[in-house]
């Protein structure tokens, strides 16, 4: 059995984000609460945003999903903080483009995204990585 691809998907960074996600928890007093629902598996995260004027001060998330979706939501949550709403949406669109088009997408991909590149070899799991980013891109 060739474990290389597997090790790329489940690399240290994704496993670590999954085990100890950033700002994982409910935040009932958030100004904005979004639901990221994946109909393929039924998994679901709530995204809690605390905004000041037009920018996102703090972000939390909570819910249930696979390692890939949890890690990707964790990374997203961290990167949302400090963005304006427009910047947040643009960032998510960038991530989704980069994820589907690879290095061809003219997008400045931060290091934190690199681990998710492996998802491209797992077409059945693409929606896991996209889940929360798509919700922000489309519904914020």
């Amino acid at each position, binding site marked *: 059995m060739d474990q290389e691809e*597997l090790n790329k998907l489940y690399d240290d960074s994704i*496993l670590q984000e999954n085990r100890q996600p950033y700002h994982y928890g409910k935040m009932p007093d958030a100004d904005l609460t979004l639901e990221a629902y994946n109909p393929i*598996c*039924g*998994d679901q995260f709530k995204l809690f945003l605390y905004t000041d004027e037009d920018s996102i001060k703090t972000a939390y998330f909570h819910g*249930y999903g*696979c*390692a890939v979706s949890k890690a990707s939501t964790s990374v997203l949550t961290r990167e949302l903080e400090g963005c304006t709403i427009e910047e947040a949406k643009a960032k998510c669109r960038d991530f989704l483009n980069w994820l589907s088009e690879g290095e061809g997408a003219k997008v400045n991909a931060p290091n934190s995204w690199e681990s998710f590149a492996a998802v491209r070899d797992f077409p*059945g*799991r693409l929606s896991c990585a996209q889940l929360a980013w798509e919700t922000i891109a489309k519904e914020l």
Partner: protein
Amino acid sequence: MLHRYPPQHGSQCTNLISIGKRLNFTQQLKNDNSEIQSIVDARSQFPNLNRQDHRDNRIIYLDNAATTHKPQLVIDSLVNHFSNQNANIHRGIHTLAIEATSHYEESRRKVQQFINAREESEVIFTSGTTAGVNLVAQTFAQQQIRPGDEILISILEHHSNLLPWQQLAAQKGAKLKVIPITACGELDMPSLERMLTSRVKILALTHISNSLGTINPIRDIIKMARSQGTYVLIDAAQSVGSYPIDVQDLDCDFLVFSGHKMYGPTGIGVLYGKAELLQAMPPWQFGGEMIRSVQIEKTVFAAPPHKFEAGTPPIAQAIALGAAIDFIGQVGLEHIQAQNQALLAYGTELLAEIPGLQLVGKARHKSAIISFMLEDIHPHDLATILNQAGVAVRAGHHCTQPLMESLGLPGTVRASMAFYNTYEDIDQLKQGLLLAKKIFT
């Protein structure tokens, strides 16, 4: 974590009969001059069992509850129809049309005999289980159900035997009641007895749970329903082809199943219905072949089964379903069943050895379906890792979302065996699970 899977009361659940040594996979099945003398012979009939993945590993297929592989006889039947026969059926008097019609109707007779229906006209070809349930819900039940009536299903039902009833109940102002299960995943019989009153017009129940493998005692339940004047539809999608079904002995009113889960092609299924009910039911779809006479003002419909087979039916697929039944006959349903049970016992024992593995569904009577969780690894992560290890399983809610919710689970990993699987297949499943554990800790 959402894991609220109810605690196990060991005593009520599966008593694993230790399998000691493996049932002999190469055992002789028959001594007649059939082509298929052993399970190894039977296995060699499935070309897709040799399929390899992109790393040249043979793919171990443990997703048989979703769809089974197809034996050469079935594939050849399709090829033969399209290469040497191919014609539209009925109303044709040229050679090809006559041949196609006679093969199509012969296949109906094979189904009739296979499920022991009284008459050929009780066998209606559909496009699958889902279509069969919808047909009954939208014709028979549409006429029968009045506001305030009850429709009874179980929490085990596949969406296909739930949504049509949920929809109908909402439309008619009827009540949809749901039989719960015990901690082992068996129907809760006291609840069932309490709920199955004469207010229940229709009981729609699965024979075998596609998620947990539970085999329901449908014969007894149908008897109880009869005594209340309740009509019964049985979802036999998971049983026909693996377990004997005798509709006269069961005395159910309707029974539905799919060709693709019994070694036949996609696009074909069967609705069995009692003759007198089918006669009284209105048609579902309208079109060619289902009429006696048509005028602009008025149409007179044909008798069953044709009344329910509007338009050009899935001709080649119906004929190939007949070939699947022939194949099952060649192997012997009793051998298929025994092999399934042996694989189940072996797999259950083997997986139980993995620390942190939690079986989901421990009914005393089970088909060869093993649902499980491994520690807190998400089912889809497990399935991905297993796939890389060459093992095809399914993960998720298995089209039984309410069941999963009632179990407090986000889904399970499901390994479902067919008689052509081997002990080595299950060994490999175990290896994959151990790998997953290693990755996740």
